């Protein structure tokens, strides 16, 4: 209500427009004619793209469900040796991007790979290749993506389990349910929204994945878009494929949003929270729990780290040749600039929303968070397409292409589009916790809007902002396709350096930047874990 158009409205409008650029670009060329490749694609590819994408997503969902929910259940309800250790090391998997996992998996299991070398050094010569499993192709992609993404399911489910009330469990006992029945009839259903939210995120990320699937040479909708757009130079075809992908993704996006809202109903008020008594596991069961958690931890984090470390040590030349300082500073510049911009503008939008209570503004904001659902590769190329069009048709008196394409600014802009929803939702959920009467109280005590923001909001949101900043940093450090396409001359990050070596069949050279990437992301995660599981 009140005055409809003000500074908050205009800035939110601007943010929404920037974020909407790629989607609008994709759809605006939807009706353009496409080349002959369309018929080839229709006849041969499209079915394969879709079926591969579906197989991939289903495979990843099943795997992440089992390892994510399984490990979350064990560490949330039971006591066994090392449980507190597992509780937080399992989130380290966030530090390993799927494409680096894919490199490790290939390096280890390929013919005459690391596994072969280990067998040979242990048992002498032998034809180990024939019985070592080959984790490549679809299987490899499913494993790589699952282990790098199961953290979403783990963290969300764990949080939900954490807030699950003791009463609920006691109810199960009262009704005489077995452990199994309690799990399937009480624990699992009440955590369902969180699990679905986690799985939807996983599915969205899987559909957007480029690095791992292209490494394993699997044609999915994402690589299909890339091929159509970049290889066949057929924008219209790319858009048609994007359309399919976006349908999938927006479905998931909706599902995730819906589940998250439901998940909120399930987390009880602070006051009612009663610490659960954890069940002590003994003997055989305890051993099984340790084995399961160890397996997940080893497979998701230790395995890729060791493989990369092994290569870094085995081929030290590549490590020595690496310009670590430059890679690090490039990576950090991107992290700081984007992080600052994202958080600053999320604040602008959320604060504007809060004080102007404008419904239209609310809708705009909701619209502007869709960027996260669109694969980075679409965002980057669509952004370039848009800037070129804009440059030629509207802004022809000044060369904006130079400013946006192949520059830090352009790169940061596309990161902004991609990660705005992450930042915005983070700040938003923080703000949701501040009752509006808190603001009113401050006004009534004579605090101006600015003072309220500085003295009340900022201190309150300090922790959420820090958490979001770190999550953004991790995402940006790992980001590949956007960086690859948008970065300036001679500008490499750990991610692009690793990818470039890997795409040149120099996996052993990709090891050092991969390892450094994982290390930096791990440091950020260690800082985050303090907040992620803060038991208030």
């Amino acid at each position, binding site marked *: 209500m009140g005055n409809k158009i003000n500074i908050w409205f205009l800035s939110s409008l601007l943010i929404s427009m920037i974020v909407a650029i790629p989607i609008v670009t994709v759809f605006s060329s939807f009706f353009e004619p496409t080349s002959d490749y369309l018929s080839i694609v229709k006849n041969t590819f499209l079915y394969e793209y879709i079926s591969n994408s579906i197989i991939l997503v289903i495979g990843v969902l099943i795997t992440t469900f089992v390892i994510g929910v399984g490990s979350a259940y064990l560490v949330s309800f039971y006591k066994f040796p090392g449980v507190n250790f597992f509780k937080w090391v399992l989130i380290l998997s966030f530090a390993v991007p799927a494409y680096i996992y894919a490199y490790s998996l290939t390096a280890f299991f390929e013919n005459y790979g690391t596994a072969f070398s280990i067998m040979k050094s242990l048992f002498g010569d032998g034809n180990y290749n024939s019985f070592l499993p080959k984790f490549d192709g679809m299987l490899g992609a499913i494993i790589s993506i699952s282990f790098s993404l199961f953290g979403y399911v783990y963290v969300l489910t764990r949080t939900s389990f954490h807030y699950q009330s003791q009463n609920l469990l006691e109810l199960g006992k009262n009704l005489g349910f077995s452990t199994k029945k309690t799990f399937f009839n009480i624990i699992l259903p009440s955590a369902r929204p969180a699990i679905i939210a986690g799985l939807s995120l996983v599915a969205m990320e899987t559909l957007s994945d480029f690095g791992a699937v292209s490494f394993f040479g699997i044609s999915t909708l994402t690589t299909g878009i890339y091929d159509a757009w970049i290889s066949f130079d057929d924008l219209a075809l790319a858009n048609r494929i994007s359309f399919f992908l976006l349908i999938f993704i927006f479905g998931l996006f909706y599902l995730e949003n819906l589940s998250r809202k439901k998940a909120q109903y399930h987390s009880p008020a602070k006051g009612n929270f009663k610490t659960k008594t954890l069940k002590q596991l003994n003997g055989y069961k305890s051993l099984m729990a340790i084995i399961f958690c160890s397996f997940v931890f080893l497979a998701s984090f230790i395995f890729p780290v060791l493989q990369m470390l092994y290569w870094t040590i085995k081929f030290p030349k590549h490590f020595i040749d690496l310009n670590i300082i430059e890679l690090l500073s490039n990576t950090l510049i991107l992290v700081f600039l984007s992080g600052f911009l994202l958080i600053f503008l999320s604040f602008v939008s959320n604060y504007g929303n809060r004080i102007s209570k404008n419904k239209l503004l609310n809708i705009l904001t909701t619209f502007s968070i869709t960027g996260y659902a669109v694969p980075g590769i679409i965002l980057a190329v669509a952004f370039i397409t848009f800037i070129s069009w804009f440059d030629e048709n509207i802004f022809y008196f000044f060369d904006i292409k130079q*400013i946006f394409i192949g520059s830090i600014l352009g790169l940061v802009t596309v990161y902004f589009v991609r990660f705005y929803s992450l930042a915005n939702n983070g700040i938003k959920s923080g703000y949701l916790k501040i009752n509006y009467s808190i603001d009113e109280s401050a006004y009534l005590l004579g605090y101006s809007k600015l003072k309220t923001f500085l003295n009340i909001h900022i201190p309150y949101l300090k922790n959420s902002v820090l958490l979001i900043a770190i999550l953004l940093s991790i995402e940006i450090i790992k980001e590949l396709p956007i960086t690859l396409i948008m970065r*300036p001359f001679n500008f490499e990050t750990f991610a692009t350096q690793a990818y470039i070596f890997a795409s040149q069949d120099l996996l052993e050279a990709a090891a050092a930047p991969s390892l450094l990437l994982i290390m930096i992301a791990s440091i950020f995660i260690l800082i985050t874990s303090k907040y992620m599981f803060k038991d208030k």
Partner: protein
Amino acid sequence: MKKITLLALILFFFAKMSLAGEVNVFSARHYDSDIQLYEKFTNKTGIKVNVVSGKDKALQKRITEEGKDSKADLYITADAGRLGAFDEKGMFQNSMSAQIKALVPANFRSDNWTGIAKRARIIYYSPERVSSEDLKGITYESLSDSKWKGKIVIRKSNNIYNQSLVASLIKNNGKEQTLEWAKKLVSNFARNPKGNDRAQILAVAAGEADLAIANTYYYALMLSGQKGEDQKEAAQKVLPYFPNQNDRGTHMNISGGGILKNSPNPENAKKLLEFLLTKEAQQHMVNNTFEYPMIEGVEPHHLIKKMGENFKQDLKTKVGDYKKNQADALEVMLMSGWK
């Protein structure tokens, strides 16, 4: 503050770009040795070399999108078909100097681009399971022979080297016949295509297949021990074989580059291209990348020489023609069920 920082960064990059005496290379080749070569070039001429590396088509896309504002001077990639296709879009300028024309055989260049190194796509076999008698007179065409049923490995049809190879077959044998051939070849596959060229050779070493088709430099790379002792030993279990020696010769491909139409520094780009074709640069390149030199008077790496010297190269099929048939090649492969 934020604006100032951004502005400073923008200016910084502008400043960097507008420096005189530089050349901007968009390269799909990511060899460290290439970077070393550029450094040598800079030391020699004072011209700074900026490199944007990326996947070839992504680079092309960016150059195309940037249009007249593109900062790119030189585009370097592997595969002649790609160069030809990019040329066909009018992205290169007619810039091959007399010097370059004199050095590079006409088969491996056009007026607008030139090869800088060569590679052959050949057959690898397991001497344990395949006798040289079986291989005698083997051609790409004869790989469709049913005696190889379940014995051949090759990478996917989306691979550009395969597309160029099949394009050369279409050029020589026609589309229909090549389709027939491809169908039979697919039925000879030992497994669904996967992995890179090196993985094909390793599959033969590991006993998964008897024959592999792969580029020459992958094999030498493994033999050099740069991929570790185990892969070196594995490569030693496999031998190379150059096909089509009795007719047109072994299929050749190139790494190459051209000066872009909107190049801001075409003179510097030409200098760099010419530098890459000097004996010094060629020697450095072949020693590190295991490719064949583009010019006369440079010896390939000894591991490459050991694979077979003076084999017959297919000089009849111009590499510049690959682009014409690559689309057909892809279609043929897909229709034959080549994943």
